[in-house]
């Protein structure tokens, strides 16, 4: 405002302002729209004009193909950026406060670092490292600094010392029976794990929050019916459902994510409902209602953000369950063997455990650390995202 117009509350001409009903979007929503639009257009192009077996970017000479899961993953990344990361930047005061609280929990900070590696590795790793390929001749190569009896290796890439094949930097974590590089497999597995983590979280959060707040605000028999439906969801045998779908339609990673997240939001919905009920009793909700805000605005701007901080913890603790479920299914040989997940890698090495334990151990340890990291972070978030408790003691 260059003009020296005195800005005082008692000099506002409301009759002029309240008549103009302009659509008032936040920067975040604008950003989200701007980012999603090209994505949607690309998907439309892919869906309409690119052949079934052609890669998406064939027209410009790239062999990279995008399947629907990738589109959804990118979409969830946008959501994550515009509604979680950007707000942290926009409210530096709150961010500093959260960080101060979060930092107290050392294991959680280390965990955050580890998840950062997995995230970045999963995002840009596949661009830098070529996908692991079958190469029977170089099967069972040991990791670097380790060695294996020559008899187990068809063709040793490194030197052979005293009848033992030495590991090389070419395959830092060794290779599987089929000669796939374990390190590359783990990096590609990071992408899969991140896809599982982001997409399931988005689906569970979207359904859970909507269902929970609607149920809390509708009340009466609507509430009753919705909560009984949640009971059904919670008691549904998801695993059997998945097997059924698997035998009838076959099931890739997308189906796994869809089925498991479609039956995992029950707990979140219940939690959101009870939390919304308690939040809506608070005086600041009354204060917002007296300002003339619509119920939608109250829910969107006050109830959901206050509920969200508590369900972030719950969601963080939900992710390890999905990762483990995927690994278990892969290990059992149920699931899409074309998906280069950690579980597939583990299952690929289970018969060679006696002489080539790295095939199971490397992805196993990575999986273990990732799950541990999610648990630690969930714990630390529970403490950090609770400013009221701190205010009371101050």
């Amino acid at each position, binding site marked *: *405002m260059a003009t020296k117009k005195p800005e005082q509350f008692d000099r506002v001409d409301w009759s002029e302002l*309240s008549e103009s009903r302009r659509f008032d979007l936040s920067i975040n929503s604008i950003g989200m729209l701007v980012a999603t639009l090209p994505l949607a257009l690309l998907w439309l192009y892919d869906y309409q004009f690119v052949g079934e077996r052609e890669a998406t970017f064939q027209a410009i000479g790239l062999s990279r193909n995008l399947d629907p899961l990738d589109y959804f993953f990118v979409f969830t990344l946008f959501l994550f950026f515009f509604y979680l990361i950007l707000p942290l930047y926009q409210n530096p005061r709150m961010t500093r406060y959260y960080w101060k609280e979060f930092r107290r929990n050392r294991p959680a900070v280390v965990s955050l670092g580890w998840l950062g590696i997995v995230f970045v590795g999963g995002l840009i790793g596949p661009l830098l490292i070529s996908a692991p390929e079958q190469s029977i001749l170089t099967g069972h190569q040991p990791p670097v600094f380790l060695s294996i009896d020559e008899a187990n290796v068809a063709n040793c890439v490194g030197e052979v010392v005293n009848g033992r094949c030495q590991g090389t930097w070419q395959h830092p974590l060794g290779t599987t029976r089929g000669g796939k590089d374990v390190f590359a497999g783990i990096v590609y597995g990071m992408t899969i794990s991140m896809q599982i983590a982001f997409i399931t979280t988005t689906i569970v959060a979207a359904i859970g929050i909507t269902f929970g707040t609607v149920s809390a605000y509708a009340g009466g028999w609507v509430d009753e019916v919705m909560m009984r439906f949640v009971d059904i969801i919670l008691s549904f045998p998801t695993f059997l459902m998945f097997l059924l779908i698997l035998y009838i339609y076959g099931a890739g990673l997308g189906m796994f994510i869809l089925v498991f997240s479609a039956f995992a939001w029950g707990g979140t919905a219940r939690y959101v409902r009870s939390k919304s009920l308690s939040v809506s009793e608070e005086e600041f909700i009354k204060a917002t209602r007296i300002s003339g805000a619509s119920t939608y605005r109250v829910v969107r*701007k006050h109830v959901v953000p206050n509920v969200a*901080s508590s369900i972030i913890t719950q969601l963080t603790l939900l992710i390890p369950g999905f990762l483990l479920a995927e690994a278990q299914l892969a290990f059992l040989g149920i699931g899409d063997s074309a998906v280069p997940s950690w579980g597939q890698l583990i299952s690929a090495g289970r018969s060679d455990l006696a002489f080539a334990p790295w095939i199971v151990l490397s992805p196993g340890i990575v999986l273990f650390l990732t799950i541990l990291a999610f648990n630690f972070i969930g714990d630390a978030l529970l403490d950090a995202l609770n400013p009221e408790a701190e205010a009371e003691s*101050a």
Partner: protein
Amino acid sequence: MTEEPLLSVRDLKKHYPIRKGLLNRQVGAARAVDGISFDIAPGETLGLVGESGCGKSTAATSIVRLEEPTGGEVIFNGGGRSGATRNADGTHPNDVTRFDDRELKAFRRDAQMIFQDPSSSFDPRMSVGGAVAEMLQIHGMSDRHRRRAIVEDLLERVGLSPEDYDRYPHEFSGGQKQRIALARALVLNPELIVADEPVSALDVSIQAEILDLIADLQSEFDLSLLFISHDMSVIREICDRVAVMYLGEIVEIGPTDRVFADPQHPYTEALLSAIPTPDPRSTAEGIELTGTVPSPTNPPSGCRFHTRCHRVIQPDDVDLDQSSWRGLLNLRDALAADSVDVDQIRENFRTGTDTGATPDAVKGQIRREFDLEETISSDEMESLLDAALDEALGDDLDAAAATLSERVTTPCEERVPQRTSHEPGHESACHLHERDRSAPPNPADD
């Protein structure tokens, strides 16, 4: 009253239905607010005082229509609505209870509210500046910078600094938060502010600061204030007029200095006597209200205060000491409610002495519990009481209650008292005054 009042509340009611059973049938209602009427002139402060649970806060939320009132009218003449006359069908165009969504939203700009608990009246996840600016945004101000400029200016006016805009509620003390709450109530430039116990949660020293600030802002912006409190000393400080509420009804209303100097309703007397006086030689002792606090679900008949009133009226042919009379009424009500535990009293005697409880000792104990002397001054009443106590000792409480009810009745429980006008603008609803001056029932002061 020649001038048009800013707010005029007529027979406002808010009943909460009590539902029970499988079919959720309504079995009763808690009459939180049961027909209150008052006016607030432009620039005036009206205090609404009463003990907790008497419906003060419900009255506030019903007036601003945070809750839908069950009945009555709330006529708001501010915000360019002045000079309206009633429609042909008797409804008033400025009746808040009939506003549609658009009118209600406009009304929100003209009437705002401050809440009691500063710790929960701000969203912990929104900066306080954002919380105040949100009001502007809701009413269509989409210019972010303008919002910020207005709020920063306002924060300064309530005694904070513009830098506080980005801070979060947990970084402020209770008094500071109440200042921000005041800023939030002011930011839409209202004409009426309803303050629901705005200083009750604060330290006494901070109370004074906030009250000063409210008074300053009020005179600067010519605000009308409905100030709700249970604290008579706070009311005296800030209010021009005061309305005393008891169990959903207004029992006395009048200019603050008149009500404080010459309270007309016994309940007001009792409230006033509870204010600590700084004079150590003052002999005025607090009036202790006996009897139980009635429930708004089932309010007492007649004058609602008769179950606790220290000046409850005696029938014409009875002339007892007032405290004995109160005791008799309390005993009668307790017997009727089955809340006199004779066995327990006997038991207490047994543990004290091994002689056991003689009937006389038990009777004496009951008399002491109800502030009745060994023998009360009226022979008739004494024999009646003795007979009732005998029946009570024989474990027949109903008969005892019936015996007492024959004679121990008060006009207060039979008729609802009319409003009596003592001087212009000072009214109370008490049988004592009706008797003194059989003034014609005064229509509400419009």
